[in-house]
């Protein structure tokens, strides 16, 4: 029986923005607006959406890089906001991040071995250098880097090797949760599959839980047990993997799925891509934030914001319509 490792409850992160020099009124950018989800021990939750949907801000709030405006984050049974000093340090050890571009997240002047050892030193894990070196060797082996490479600098490594180093550093403190923000999107095609497989093997071996942030749904399908879809700071759909990929219930999820280009030539494929851009989170549309781009929007969508409601025990959707109501009805033609 798995237990909840991370619980995010009604998380909101708002940033103050000022429009002009003389504007007095304080405006807010609602980057994350009432987001809740749970990650079980050893499981993977995918967080997907277009850029600006708030997925990275959510991740940064979880590790404490952004201060939540409202809401709670519980990690391993403890409320993060209650912790300070050594207890907070201890909790933070348990969650580590892997970033998209390993080049900008690795210090170019440090050698690989030191980069991986740095978190161990920061937390004074080992007293002797010998023990530390042993641990670094184990970590390098786990992520598929030859120990002989520990004297190399980041610029001497390929993109895939740098990402392996980033993963090794994240694993150094034996975290229970790894937050991976677009970990494979900057990598080459033939390397992407290698890193996806590596993350899977590490999970089996070390029973780490992942919060996997990605925009590529095909990658998400290969890595995640459950998927949360975000749009403009809110969750629009949450479902187990197979359900999301076979029976999506939010038109936005369906649009994201339709936008994935399958690696198969299909000359007749002319499905209408989603129109328009993501609107500004400073000035979100009324009602359902997705309605201006939704091909199926009705009057109610313009007026009332749909809440996230359970469609089955593990499937939640924030939409006024059921798939039966919106599938096959494209109102774009009728409106024009």
């Amino acid at each position, binding site marked *: 029986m798995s237990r909840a490792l991370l619980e995010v409850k009604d998380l909101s992160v708002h940033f103050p923005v000022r429009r002009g020099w003389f504007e007095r009124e304080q405006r807010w950018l609602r980057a994350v607006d009432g987001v809740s989800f749970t990650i079980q021990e050893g499981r993977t939750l995918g967080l997907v959406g*277009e*850029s600006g949907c708030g997925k990275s801000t959510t991740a940064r709030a979880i590790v404490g890089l952004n201060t939540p405006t409202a809401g709670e984050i519980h990690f391993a049974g403890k409320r993060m906001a209650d912790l300070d000093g050594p207890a907070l340090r201890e909790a933070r050890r348990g969650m580590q991040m892997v970033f998209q571009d390993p080049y900008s997240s690795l210090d170019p002047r440090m050698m690989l071995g030191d980069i991986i050892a740095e978190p161990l030193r920061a937390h004074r894990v080992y007293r002797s250098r010998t023990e530390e070196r042993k641990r670094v060797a184990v970590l390098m082996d786990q992520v598929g880097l030859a120990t002989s490479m520990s004297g190399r600098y980041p610029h001497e490594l*390929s*993109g*895939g*090797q740098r990402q392996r180093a980033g993963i090794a550093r994240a694993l150094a403190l034996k975290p229970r949760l790894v937050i991976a923000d677009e970990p494979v999107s900057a990598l*080459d*095609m*033939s*390397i*992407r*599959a*290698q890193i*996806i*497989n590596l993350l*899977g093997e590490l999970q089996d071996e070390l029973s780490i839980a992942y919060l996997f942030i990605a*925009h*590529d*749904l*095909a*990658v998400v*399908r*290969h890595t995640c047990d459950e998927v949360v879809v975000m749009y403009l700071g809110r969750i629009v759909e949450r479902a187990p*993997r197979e359900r999301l*990929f076979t029976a999506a219930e939010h038109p936005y999820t369906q*649009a*994201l*799925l*339709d*936008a*994935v*280009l*399958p*690696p*198969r*030539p*299909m000359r007749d*494929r*002319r499905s209408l*891509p*989603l*129109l328009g*851009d*993501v609107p500004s989170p400073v000035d979100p549309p009324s009602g359902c934030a997705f309605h201006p781009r939704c091909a199926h929007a009705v009057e109610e969508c313009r007026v009332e914001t749909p809440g996230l409601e359970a469609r089955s025990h593990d499937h939640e959707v924030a939409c006024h319509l059921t798939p039966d109501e919106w599938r096959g009805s494209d109102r774009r033609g009728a409106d024009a």
Partner: protein
Amino acid sequence: MLDVRNLKTYFSTDEGEVRAVDGVSFAIARGEILCLVGESGCGKSVTAMSLLGLVPSPPGRVVAGEVLLAPEQEGGDGASALDLRKASESELRQVRGRRIAMIFQDPMTSLNPYLTVGVQLTEVLEVHMRMRGEPARERAAQMLTSVGISDAEQRLNDYPHEMSGGIRQRVMIAMALLCEPDVLIADEPTTALDVTIQAQILALIRQLQEGTGLGVLLITHDLGVVANMADRVAVMYAGRIVEQGPVEAIFDDPKHPYTAGLLRSLPQLSGPCETLPVIPGLPPPAGSTERGCSFAPRCDRVMDRCWQQDPPTVRWGSGRHVVCHLDDIATEDGERR
């Protein structure tokens, strides 16, 4: 329309000469989309730069090959093809932007942040078409409308930073197509965009290209983009094209082990969801292989001769060719050369 033969571009570095593009040949017919696909460092962007004489020199140098651009009038009786490699700088300037236009991955770096979009669009018309003032502005607005930008008149006064990434890429496409070029070179035009915006931009390129005779060289690393856009595909690895042919043939029956391995390793939206079959190792820097096949260290079907001899080119009538030693490739109706 554009016929590239045995193009070689070398760079001199501290570690010696790097053969970034090492004998690349392809042709783009009128109204055709050719996708040049490969991983970073395989030489696909250098190939594009070489076509237009844009390789920074030094350290780069186009050392061999022909880049033949068909004459402007259809039929082309009288005038012969222009070899861009032999063309003078002023002839090249006439070709760039006017007959061959180029768009890049990040429109922010190719648009001038200090000038409004309108100024930048009309400048192109002035340089190439000697069109000024109100007619130029009208033409620019009309072009913006045709790439799906609403309130085009208004948008001409905007600066690049006031636009989203998707709109900026539309502006770049509008700018590229202003002079009705014969060939569009698009280097990773959607890589920096969200998937939904990517779908919009790709649909736009296809819509603008269909029925106009515009030939497109689309450079990408994304096989999904290739499958949905290409008429023909050229797969590049370490400075060379290892497989080329019609898009259906490449995807339905990949013959080169590299192409086959890549297609197997792709995460997909359907089918089994288990460990992905990977190509082990890393792509080598272009042109680093002295002898034999540059894919040999990663190939699951490698044989002794792959290390020693350059692989032969096997050709089929359909315009398909594969550069590989494997015997079963040649035993079909391909002709070995």
